[in-house]
């Protein structure tokens, strides 16, 4: 198996070198640079749309789904490598040229390489990787997200001024939903004369969600979806090519 893995690595290195050579040699061909990628895009999109019209019990449906999912998973995995190459080279440059805050780039690279090493070596079951995940990644991630609570509160303080009818509606809906989500909200609500005893704030929050939020979100979703579909058709037909880069 080790021999086979070695062969696989050599095979992909040779393949990559050959691709780069071919890429450099044929870089002036307009057909290869523009028309063929557009044909690829069209073909892929049409295959996926075609799959929609095949009954799920037909083996062809499963084959197309399996093939397209595998392709996307493999290509996306390689696309991630591009991002990581960029991250590592940028931080190496920062360290070698002693840019401002270069010391932190060392911390970043250390975090990246240590996590990658233990993760690739032992998988998710590894003791060291598990330690990094549980005591570094998870706490830092939830702290980063939770810190937004402070910024959201400060933004709300500035934005939530009942200066107009619309702003008042926004403020009222937000306050009712927030009160409806906590026990303290129900307690405070019960002190409001008449309505406080008549119904609970959590019921009111649920009603807002069920009626107004559903209506508003559905309207936005319908508009955005029609836009998505139109943009997708433009991409498939080659009218929209901005994803090719600045050259187009």
């Amino acid at each position, binding site marked *: *198996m080790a021999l086979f893995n070695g062969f696989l690595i050599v095979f992909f290195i040779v393949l990559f070198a050959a*691709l780069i050579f071919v890429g450099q040699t044929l870089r002036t061909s307009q057909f290869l640079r523009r028309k063929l990628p557009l044909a690829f895009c069209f073909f892929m999109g049409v295959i996926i749309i075609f799959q929609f019209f095949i009954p799920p019990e037909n083996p062809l449906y499963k084959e197309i789904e399996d093939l397209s999912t595998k392709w996307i998973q493999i290509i996306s995995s390689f696309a991630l490598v591009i991002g990581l190459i960029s991250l590592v080279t940028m931080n190496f440059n920062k360290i070698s040229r002693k840019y401002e805050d270069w010391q932190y780039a060392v*911390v970043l690279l250390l975090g990246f390489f240590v996590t990658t090493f233990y993760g690739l070596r032992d998988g998710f079951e590894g003791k060291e*990787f598990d330690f990094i995940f549980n005591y570094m990644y998870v706490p*830092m991630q939830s702290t980063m997200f939770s*810190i937004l609570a402070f910024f959201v509160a400060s933004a709300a303080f500035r934005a939530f001024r009942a200066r107009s009818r619309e702003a008042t509606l926004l403020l009222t809906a937000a306050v009712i939903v927030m009160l409806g989500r906590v026990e303290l909200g129900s307690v405070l609500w019960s002190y409001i004369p008449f309505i406080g005893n008549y119904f609970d704030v959590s019921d009111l929050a649920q009603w807002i969600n069920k009626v107004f939020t559903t209506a508003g979100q559905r309207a936005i979703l319908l508009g955005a979806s029609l836009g998505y579909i139109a943009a997708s058709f433009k991409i498939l037909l080659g009218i929209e090519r901005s994803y090719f880069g600045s050259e187009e």
Partner: protein
Amino acid sequence: MPLFALGFNFRPVFEAGGGVSTEGIGIWIAAILTLGIYSFLYKDNFFYKFSEYLFVGVSAGYTLVLTFHKYLKPSLIEPLQEYSRDFYHIITGASVPIVNPWMLSWQTHLVGNQFGSQFSFIFWFAVKVFLFYIFPAILGLMMISRVFPNAAWLSRFPLATIVGYGSGIMIVTTLHASVLEQIKASFVSFAPLFHMKGVDWSIIAQSANDFLLVLGLCCAIIYFYFSAEHKGVILGPASNFGIWVLMITFGASFGYTVMARISLLIGRFQFLLGDWMQLVK
């Protein structure tokens, strides 16, 4: 150590037997990093920057590991290993069990060892492996060609594949789930209101809610209709009501977002005060 002097019962790093506790060290590291990130609330400082850069590095590493073990390994590396091993065993006639079901069906078909069957097997094996594994791997390698400016144009092929796939998926799934299904869900029935025996307040309330929902939806869509000026007897008031519905939607969404962040904040404080300082059980 003034906090120790105040009598805080921090999570010990050492176990009762004398050994080092991995969990204790982990909790201390997590607590220091948590406080490091919260220190940004005062101002940008060394502890925050350290935690921030470490988070980016660890996240990037975690994403790479996740992608490798969840996608690249099961979609490319393991199948290639499995197919090649089975192919070698079938061709050499080794008495080793064949793992892959597709290859197993070929093995039973090849009993008798005719030249035509063997040729057909090798041909379909090459087609399957190339189409499912080698070709997407070539597209993946083309993506990495972006590193070389003269060959960077090769990355247009994998990009076109991903964008084409995404567009195809978007057209069919969005049309189905976000347009047709949403429209279908908006066609509510008021029949129970007309077939009601006596006064049933639950049916009346349900119908009123449904009416308000449809009215809100139509008015919010009218607000997004820009081909005519929002004036007159219908478009003007409808557009205004649409704005109110959207404002309530945004307010409610904001409220839910705030509460989700607050829940995370409570979780972090529970960790600091419970697991680390051991003040809260």
